[in-house]
């Protein structure tokens, strides 16, 4: 229950920080009001979380930290009277759920601190770093009972995820740039300016909803993945609903500040560029969701905005702001790894 409570807190933090990525371009371009943006976000993020959130939950919960010897792990679970649903495999966090609590708490603390500072940091970076930190704590100085099953860190999976973190902003930049040029050519033939703006505004709303869906499907795994690790066999759709509701709450109550940072301060967006930015970002996140990889919607959104901003030349993009955000991205997994390692040690009493 404690893990579930902190997962909700984490989801709330994601909603406050990352939900802005889905709607910032639309609100920044004054196509949607904050209220309507939050309505679309709540509907589509929860839908994405329920319908396709299970992919990333599986990766975060069961692919980053796991047991080398699953049979030995099942015997340890039996010896400790931990009942598992049929077919469910225990993870190190199933046997030491307090470490899962430390991991998700570490990620949540950092996301909330970053949100207070107005930085659109990645919850994906935060949670992957935190899960690895707790995994290291269990592997090196964890309870002796786990030693028989061999706690393992999925280094190859981590490399795959880290590589996707590099690809995400680059992909979003490229998609946004290409989408802008591909859509601009046929739409330039429309001579009626009012009609053109209506077309672009409709496209922006559709792609913002797609982005919210992709965001829900990808990022809910960050909040609920650790719950899956602690309680293998849990209903992933129900966890998706739980995580989606947490995200929607955070977005409704606390996301205005980051919306401001992304939508207005990095580069000012017209409807045409907002559409390209949004669609490029949404497409990138959705592709990685289908690959079950937790990527940063912050990376994708900022990449999309930069890609669209590049259409007007590099001077349209605020370099100082982008550098500051990039630094926060790089240090996020390291910071959460350290916090989580410390918390896991503290909570397990090592």
């Amino acid at each position, binding site marked *: 229950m404690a893990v579930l409570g902190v997962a909700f807190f984490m989801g709330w933090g994601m909603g406050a920080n990352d939900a802005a990525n889905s709607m910032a371009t639309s609100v920044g371009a004054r196509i949607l009001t904050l209220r309507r943006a*939050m309505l679309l976000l*709540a*509907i589509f993020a*929860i839908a994405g979380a329920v319908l396709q959130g299970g992919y990333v939950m599986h990766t975060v919960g069961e692919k980053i930290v796991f047991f080398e010897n699953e049979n030995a792990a099942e015997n340890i679970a039996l010896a400790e009277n931990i009942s598992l649903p049929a077919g469910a495999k225990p993870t190190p966090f199933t046997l030491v759920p307090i470490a899962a609590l430390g991991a998700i708490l570490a990620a949540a603390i950092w996301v909330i601190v970053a949100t207070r500072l107005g930085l659109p940091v990645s919850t994906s970076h935060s949670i992957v770093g935190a899960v690895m930190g707790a995994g290291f704590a269990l592997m090196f100085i964890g309870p002796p009972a786990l030693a028989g099953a061999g706690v393992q860190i999925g280094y190859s999976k981590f490399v795959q995820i880290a590589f996707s973190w590099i690809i995400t902003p680059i992909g979003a930049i490229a998609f946004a740039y290409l989408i802008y040029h591909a859509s601009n050519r046929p739409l330039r033939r429309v001579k009626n300016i009012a009609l053109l703006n209506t077309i672009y505004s409709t496209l922006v709303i559709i792609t913002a909803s797609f982005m919210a869906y992709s965001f829900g499907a990808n990022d809910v795994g960050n909040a609920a993945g650790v719950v899956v690790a602690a309680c293998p066999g849990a209903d992933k759709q*129900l966890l*998706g*609903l*739980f995580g989606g*509701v947490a995200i929607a709450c955070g977005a409704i109550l606390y996301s205005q500040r980051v919306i401001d940072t992304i939508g207005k301060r990095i580069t000012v967006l017209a409807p045409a560029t907002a559409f390209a930015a949004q669609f490029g970002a949404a497409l990138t996140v959705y592709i990685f969701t289908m690959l079950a990889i937790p990527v940063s919607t912050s990376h994708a959104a900022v990449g999309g905005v930069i890609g669209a901003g590049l259409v007007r030349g590099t001077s349209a993009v605020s370099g100082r702001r982008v550098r500051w955000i990039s630094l926060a991205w790089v240090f996020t997994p390291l910071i959460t790894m350290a916090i989580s390692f410390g918390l896991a040690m503290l909570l397990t009493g090592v």
Partner: protein
Amino acid sequence: MELWKVAFLAVIFTGLVIGWVFGPLLGLVVIVVVLVLIEAFPFRKSRPKASKKKLRP
């Protein structure tokens, strides 16, 4: 806090409870349908009735 935020949160949490009891897909449907209805038919303040008192010259 604005009224729309309170309304959205109430709908979302009701959907969560329904999803918990009757299944997550039903919870999702309830959230979507009720939020769309709220936006389609927003609550409006009733107009104040015109005063019967005559205005002073």
